[in-house]
């Protein structure tokens, strides 16, 4: 990847992270940890990959993104705002009464949200339906689904995995965010879904691994995904929960807790310094 573009993406991802913190802090609730682990992924997709038009969010030929790990809505909202789907000021009313931005994604109320999600395991099925529909009518759009590593403990994910391979949905890419933590602890302690790559391979998917926080590697993974025919693609990204905010990184406690005022200041200070370093 061109060094200038990489730096721009890194700076954008940092702004997206600031939006996550802004939203969750003002909501006094929400899920910062898993949101921060997918900020680079969503930044890459919305700024370098997806065929979308913020002015025409329902464009029929658009690429679709289904946030199957719907509790990480703050990251999706932040990237959509950054991309111009709606005003960034909306982030401050996340989860408030009367607000556009619901606790979990609502496709009816929020421009750019392609599927209502939140109940884990369901988004991947809807993504398969979108991909199948595209196949039926020979459309060129692609469908991207983002799943949590805890989420794949849901049996429905594997029903969908079977369906996608059986129907050769090579217009579908599912990214599993392997940050290693879920609410009750380490995924390997709770009810281990490991080994993730072997499981998707066994289900007939083409599997790619990727470093979630390295744009060169992200680009490499999606370039490889592009070349796969006849199979759905699973990208398993190794990520850091809470990435970008030092005291949140790899801490299970930050799965679903909002920062207090002091923690908010600290997080924003760190992200501002990162941004200054990237833009300086």
């Amino acid at each position, binding site marked *: 990847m061109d060094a200038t573009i990489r730096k721009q993406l890194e700076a954008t991802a940092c702004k997206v992270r600031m939006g996550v913190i802004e939203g969750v802090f003002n909501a006094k609730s929400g899920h910062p940890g898993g949101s921060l682990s997918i900020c680079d992924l969503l930044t890459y997709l919305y700024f370098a990959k997806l065929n979308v038009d913020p002015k025409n969010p329902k464009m029929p030929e658009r690429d679709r993104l289904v946030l199957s790990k719907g509790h990480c809505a703050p990251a999706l909202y932040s990237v959509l705002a950054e991309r111009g789907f709606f005003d960034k000021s909306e982030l401050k009313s996340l989860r408030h009464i009367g607000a556009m931005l619901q606790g979990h994604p609502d496709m009816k109320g929020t421009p750019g949200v392609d599927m209502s999600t939140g*109940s884990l395991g369901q988004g991947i099925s*809807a993504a398969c339906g979108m991909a199948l*529909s595209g196949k039926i*009518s020979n459309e060129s759009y692609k469908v991207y689904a983002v799943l949590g590593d805890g989420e794949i403990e849901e049996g*429905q994910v594997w*029903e969908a995995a079977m369906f996608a391979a059986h129907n050769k949905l090579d217009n579908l890419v599912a990214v599993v965010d392997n940050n290693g933590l879920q609410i009750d602890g380490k995924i390997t302690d709770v009810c281990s879904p490991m080994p993730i790559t072997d499981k998707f391979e066994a289900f007939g998917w083409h599997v790619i691994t990727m470093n979630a926080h390295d744009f060169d590697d992200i680009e490499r993974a999606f370039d490889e995904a592009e070349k796969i025919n006849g199979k759905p693609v699973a990208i398993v990204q190794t990520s850091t929960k809470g990435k970008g905010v030092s005291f949140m990184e790899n801490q299970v406690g930050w799965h679903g807790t909002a920062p207090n005022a002091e923690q908010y200041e600290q997080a924003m200070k760190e992200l501002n310094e990162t941004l200054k370093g990237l833009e300086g």
Partner: protein
Amino acid sequence: MADVIKKATRESYGEALAELSEKYSDLIVLDADLAAATKTGIFKKACPERFFDCGIAEANMMGIAAGIASTGKKVFASSFAMFAAGRAFEIVRNSIGYPHLNVKIGATHAGISVGEDGATHQCNEDIALMRTIPGMTVICPADDVEAKAAVAAALEFNGPVYMRFGRLAVPVFNDKDTYKFELGKGVQLKDGSDVTIIATGLMVNEALIAADMLAADGINARVINIHTIKPLDKEIVCKAARETGVIVTAEEHSVIGGLGSAVADAVTECCPVPVIKVGVNDVFGHSGPAVQLLKEFGLSAENIAEKAKAAVALKK
């Protein structure tokens, strides 16, 4: 008199899908390894390229249907009522109901008349489950003519619809040349002033027989067919409450949460009158021939007539 023609509404469902496949070139039909039983196999034969078998995975099937609907195509997802409304309930609620996607659910083998398969497959709870989902339309047709017309109407309608069909062949009493299906509208089949029998599905024909039995005893019963349980035709229900003073409901479903509950909900707001429910009385079914089970569980004209007499007695 010619013999009464009997046909299962699941058969009508499959035929209607195939008949409508030309009109709706974007219609997709999904099933979960039950195409031969739900009769979506008839559509599959007519349009194999638009039929997708999701395997024994109803939860995923409902999500697939949601995804297809989000791209603008029309889609039916089919399974037995037990699995469509029961197993996949939460997916229907969150992936179809909450985003109000244009998915039609064709649920067959509803109620006790599943017969020999027994309690695990006799779904007496689906109407209750589906009517709690905001924005969900719930339809339970009474015969072949109504079932076919209902499928056509559901395809014209934009929004999620749950459709309930039966396994057992039941009498065709509607005239296909004159029948007109109006979503959300109850149908008064017989006027009467002493009691109103409000029925749905295969109990509508039993209600008509019950009315004849009651007439022989000097009781003039009104009979109303409610094919659309949600949204309920409150006007026809409240009018019946006001004019006949007592109501008997009849459904092949639990007395908890189904048509009887919907009717009771309505009359308590507009004109509180006694509502006696004929239905499955909060018990599981068991194996046996469908016709015998219907009798055993009181889903019969005789029981409706008996309850109607009890209802009339309450007025004195």
